[in-house]
């Protein structure tokens, strides 16, 4: 991912509406994002575009992930 594109994504992860997501996404970017391949990074960027409550319910396991493309990244987010 290009620097500018990454920094934009980073800003959109570290300034969420909900504190829970600020923490969870910042941690994921710092610890796991670099290990993803380009396609997985793209999937993560799509997830980060979700509404805050929807994404938090997915990460906290209060909602099931029904999209098979997202499931592997959601599983990583839950463990991070």
């Amino acid at each position, binding site marked *: 991912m290009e620097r500018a594109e990454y920094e*934009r994504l980073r800003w959109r992860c570290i300034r969420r509406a909900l504190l829970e997501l600020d923490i969870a996404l910042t941690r994921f970017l710092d610890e796991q994002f670099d290990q993803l391949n380009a396609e997985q990074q793209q999937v993560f960027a799509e997830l980060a575009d979700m509404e805050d409550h929807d994404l938090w319910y997915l990460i906290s396991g209060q909602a099931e992930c029904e999209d098979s493309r997202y499931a592997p990244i959601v599983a990583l987010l839950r463990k991070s």
Partner: protein
Amino acid sequence: MSIPVLKFDAVIVGAGGAGLRSAIQLSEAGLKTAVLSKVFPTRSHTVAAQGGVAASLGNSEEDHWHWHMYDTVKGSDWLGDQDAIEFMCKKANEVVVELEHYGMPFDRTDNGKIYQRPFGGHMSNFGEKPVRRSCAAADRTGHAMLHAMYQRNVKANTQFFVEWMALDLIRDVDGAVIGVTAMEMETGQIVIFHARAVIFATGGAGRIYHSSTNAFINTGDGLGMAARAGIPLEDMEFWQFHPTGVAGAGVLITEGVRGEGGILRNSSKERFMERYAPNAKDLASRDVVARAMATEIKEGRGCGVNKDYVLLDITHLDPATIMKRLPGIREISIQFAGVDPIKEPIPVVPTCHYQMGGIPTNYYGRVVVPQGDSLSVEIPGFYAAGECACASVHGANRLGTNSLLDLLVFGKSAGDSAVADLKSGLAHRELPKDAADFSLARVDAINNRKGGASVFEARQAIARTMQDHAGVFRFGDMLKKGAAQILEVEKQAKSLEIKDKSQVWNTARIEALETENLIEVAKATMISAEARKESRGAHVRDDAPDTPEFPNGRNDKEWLKHTLFYSADNSIKYKGVNLQPLSVETVALKTRSY
């Protein structure tokens, strides 16, 4: 250097509830309106508000705005201005119904009316019994509100500048506010927004505390801008805390955990609430529990390496009960505390939640400051609303569901005032030649400084200093130390160095600029808190205890007044509380008890 100038009738800084509400008034009046926001509007922190919005609609049982007003004055511990409180409570029904017309999906009763639920502190008949006054949209009230208002703004042609950070207020030689400087994050370009009216709706600054429920975005940018422009900050010593946030993270652990049998323990595993509240124990009220926790920590009985938290123990509960009755708590604990609460207790600490003080305004949403013989002179062209403003309706303590009401009523009021002023001739004033110089110098210093402090360390220093010295329960000696220490931290926060020198998408630079705002709020809070030698509402000192002469430690004879803190020389002025409502009798002073 030539700086681009964008000209608007009105510029609103912040696109949360208050900003969006005021923008509707301006755009629908046909005025050219810009809204600047660090994030997409529906990512503003208003999203996190779940409780609902208070309005005495009386849909479920009899209710009246006057009862709501009484509750709010009492909640404020009589520090709220009674004209502003009457104005807000009276306007509540109107702004809630308007929101319904904008498409807000409120919960409904069987007969189709807005469903209302009870909420702490809201009573019928002047404090007699709880009343159903809160209007909500499931657990997404704030979020649904932002969506409805954003759509309305799009329809009204409000121009949004998303991922822009406002830097400084521009005032002319007469002190009138004539615009702001702002930076586009994508390009790093600094631009002047030249306006006839500027409305601040930048939210709170809960990130000054180490443990905070506030999202990272709440860095008090509007307060920092106001403070740098010579405008005092009002009643900044008053912050609402929640007793149980996850230590180190701030994420809330609901009070329901104690309701289900959770027990608070100190480092020797003692159930310490037995000493502070022998009957209610862990189920004592929020403030009693938070104060007990703070005392345990201060007296060295906290847990962990730094002895800076206590434990919330539910290991004795049946795991099935935890899963069924406390959904999400196990996940939160595992994610943010790293412990499974079925097996180990959760580290918790009193956690900052809401800022009662802010930029001083009247109930018209106009910013007012001392000038000459008067303590409340309006600054031409400057308005503020929502958590960044202090009208003052929350006084020393806010009632739940009054924050969403505040941002609707005063967002609208600030918008209406700006419209009225613009229609009656408030014109663009000439931009000084050096309008952007101050901002350019600040940004240049951050870009080019060598050997300065790191942003991370400065933020840690601010947050730790505030948490340790001006937390939920305050001690005279700690406040004194804190007031000296925060001035040292200020030097650090005003000499930041960043490693990333990129022009485009430089988030390190944005975080440095935010830090310069945080320190203004932290300093105002600490020095104002040290100076107020009484206990009132959320400001509780151990050296101002409950006595027959001063019930709850409140001293109306000396301290029934608002603090106005000036950053330039760290000085304080005081102004009296307005005890005169608009149309009804004063809610007479009495001891606040529930």
